[in-house]
């Protein structure tokens, strides 16, 4: 199974891409560990995670096709 991960704001710079795909991630927490392994610097940034547009926590299970967004604090206006 594959999920799509969107990196927003400064996190797109940290990861070097706005979108990445990850295979075989069971939960949000599992995915977060994988992302931290790939981009260790990300631990220095504060961000929230949404799954299919809903802000969520690390226990949430993932399924193929889910869209996960890593979102730093909002700064609109």
């Amino acid at each position, binding site marked *: 199974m594959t999920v799509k991960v*969107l990196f*927003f*704001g*400064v996190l*797109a*710079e940290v990861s070097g891409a706005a979108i990445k795909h990850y295979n075989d991630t069971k939960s949000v927490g599992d995915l977060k560990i994988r992302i931290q392994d790939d981009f260790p610097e990300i631990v220095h940034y504060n961000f929230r995670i*949404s799954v299919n*547009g809903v802000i969520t926590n690390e226990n949430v299970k993932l399924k193929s096709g889910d869209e996960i*967004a890593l*979102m*730093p604090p*909002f*700064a*609109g*206006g």
Partner: protein
Amino acid sequence: MEDNYLISGPISGITVSQLVEKAGKRMDIGANMIFLGQVRADVLDGKRVKAIEYSAYHEMVTAEVEKIKSSIRNEFSDINSIEILHSTGMVNAGETSLLVMVSAGHRQHAMQACNKIVELIKANLPVWKKEIFEDNSHVWK
């Protein structure tokens, strides 16, 4: 990219005047409250901001704006229409990046609702900004 609430680049004076003209066609409106957010040329460590580059989670912006409009309509009975526009991409200092226009029967609800919408946008809209300095270095806000 452009959708219902996001516009690529700055919000023009023409857009503002078109919205005012549109409101003028409704005879039940007695008050139009307009908030325009403008890019400020802040100075940080001696460097002046020349522009802000905005990015957004488009789908979530749409959902959040719909939620904001719905909650405002529930709270204020006198509202006729709500217009919300936020820029994405590059907006130069002095240009407009956010428009909120609330039209109502009377001024109190228009002013209160507009103020509340701006605060909700600041808190809940998934939008990010990169401040770009005159020397082309940048900082994320």
